[in-house]
């Protein structure tokens, strides 16, 4: 059963006439994690924003995007809005800019949960604090009353994950969540995302350019270059037997780095 089935997705810029995504087709299996790998400008984020229909107004898209059987492209804007957050959740790359800088974190959490569930403030606080504790955020009550610039990138990422825990969506789209973090925070965030999947059984689309992070969390992988999908398949087969030249190049450069690291560590011990 596929939770997402995209067919002949075409995304183009009406201002410049440039085509960003030419003709993408792919599926995401229910309960699995699909990684989208590629360098900057390959169209990974545009594809995911297209699924959520959150590209800029001058960027148009066509094709079918089936989510749980429904074509998202055909929905009206209010219907789409109801799906966002509750069924399709997004985790952004830069936590610092994801929240309104003039409001404390709690405001966004409250507004989102009120919009979808209509709970009162006490219930919202209870639920979000429970979720924040399970993503290893200490002093959740104080954090809710702080401004985004007072928190670190890793903490803000985990707040977004905590919000996803409460919302219990069917699909989580994580747009390069670890790119702006240091290695330790990267590890923690990836751990949290793995646990999130295990706990909720949701499906995930994980965008990254870092193969090291991706192989830990993803089941399937999709390699994109210049707006086209050049290779698709299960994580194991793509990494061990890459068929396209570009994938081979990505894998080999990554191996080169980690081999050197391993040799260094082994040499020491």
């Amino acid at each position, binding site marked *: 059963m596929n939770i997402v089935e995209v067919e002949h997705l075409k995304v183009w810029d009406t201002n410049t006439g440039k085509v960003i995504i030419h003709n993408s087709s792919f599926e995401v299996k229910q309960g699995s994690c699909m990684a989208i790998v590629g360098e900057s400008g390959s169209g990974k984020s545009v594809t995911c924003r297209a699924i959520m229909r959150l590209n800029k107004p001058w960027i148009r898209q066509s094709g079918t995007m089936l989510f749980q059987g429904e074509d998202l492209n055909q929905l009206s804007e209010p219907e789409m809005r109801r799906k966002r957050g509750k069924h399709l959740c997004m985790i952004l790359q830069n936590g610092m800019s994801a929240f*309104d800088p003039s409001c404390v974190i709690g405001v966004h959490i409250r507004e989102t949960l009120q919009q979808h569930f209509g709970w009162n403030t006490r219930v919202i606080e209870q639920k979000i604090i429970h979720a924040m504790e399970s993503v290893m955020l200490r002093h959740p009550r104080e954090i809710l009353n702080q*401004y985004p610039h007072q928190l670190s990138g890793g903490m803000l990422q985990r707040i977004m994950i905590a919000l996803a825990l409460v919302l219990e969506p069917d699909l989580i789209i994580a747009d390069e969540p670890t790119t702006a973090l240091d290695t330790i925070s990267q590890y923690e965030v990836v751990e949290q995302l793995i646990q999130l999947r295990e706990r909720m059984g949701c499906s995930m689309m994980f965008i990254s350019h870092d193969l090291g992070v991706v192989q830990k969390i993803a089941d399937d992988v999709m390699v994109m270059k210049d707006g086209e999908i050049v290779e698709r398949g299960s994580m194991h087969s793509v990494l061990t037997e890459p068929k396209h030249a570009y994938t081979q190049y990505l894998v080999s450069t990554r191996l080169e780095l980690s081999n050197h690291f391993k040799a260094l560590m082994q040499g020491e011990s």
Partner: protein
Amino acid sequence: MGSYIVKRILLTIPLLIIISFITFVLINLSPLDPAVVVLQAQEVPQITDELIAQTNEALGFDQPFMIQYANWIMAVLQLDFGNSYVSGEPVWSLMGPAFMNTLKLTLVSSVFIIALSILLGVICAMREGKLLDRSVRGISFFLTAMPSYWLAAIMIWYFSVKLDLLPTSGMDSYRSYILPVIVITVSYTGIYFRTVRSSMLSNMNEDYVLYARASGLSEKKVTLHILKNSLQVAVSIFCMAIPIVLGSTVVIENVFAWPGLGRLSVKSILSRDFPIIQAYVLMLAVTFVLFNTLSDIINAAMNPRLRKEF
């Protein structure tokens, strides 16, 4: 927050002292001997040397510089700006009512400027690129290129002369406010609405808007967030608008014969009436500094990041 306010206010004190000093020095930069200026202003037919010496002694110009400054400052703090060279009346009795008249005109105009700028800025940002946006921007270009007195003259000619609807000059009833306020509003709204518009546009492209939409928030809530952030920038700019309009009404007041500071200052400049010029500069500079401080405080209140400056 409280400590920020206190520190900010404390900073203005040395600034005010320096400003008062510069204002005082300014007058003494005149190439002419101050006594000569006084006598000329009073239109004394023959200026002899002993007359100059007498005047110098009478007005205290022969004393050392710092003592003159000290005396002047002490007097100013009690609102005694000296006497006019021309009429001999105390400066404050001339300036006080004039200041009030100008202030009334400024405040009324400022309200309209702020309201119209925000309205136009928000609407144009939301309809960016469309016909409404482009026509408003095009029209505002030309309106701000027009000298305000030219616009004023055209309006007087049309509304007062041809249609005989509104008074041409003076400050009689609320009707005499209409034309000057329109001219001032038109001149300044064109500039300020662009600030609001670009602030809104840059906020509309921010990540937090994307995340808010991705979380499923209604468009109304998202727009409120955008507005809140955009207007923050605008508030401090609008705060500075008031003293700027206050100082720039000079020309408008002359065209409409409004009995305010503008008219008074031009008259004093033409007759070299230094005490009035001095008082005018000091009052407006102090107003400027005070509003600057206020705008910084408001900015810090709305944007917590700025409080870290100290």
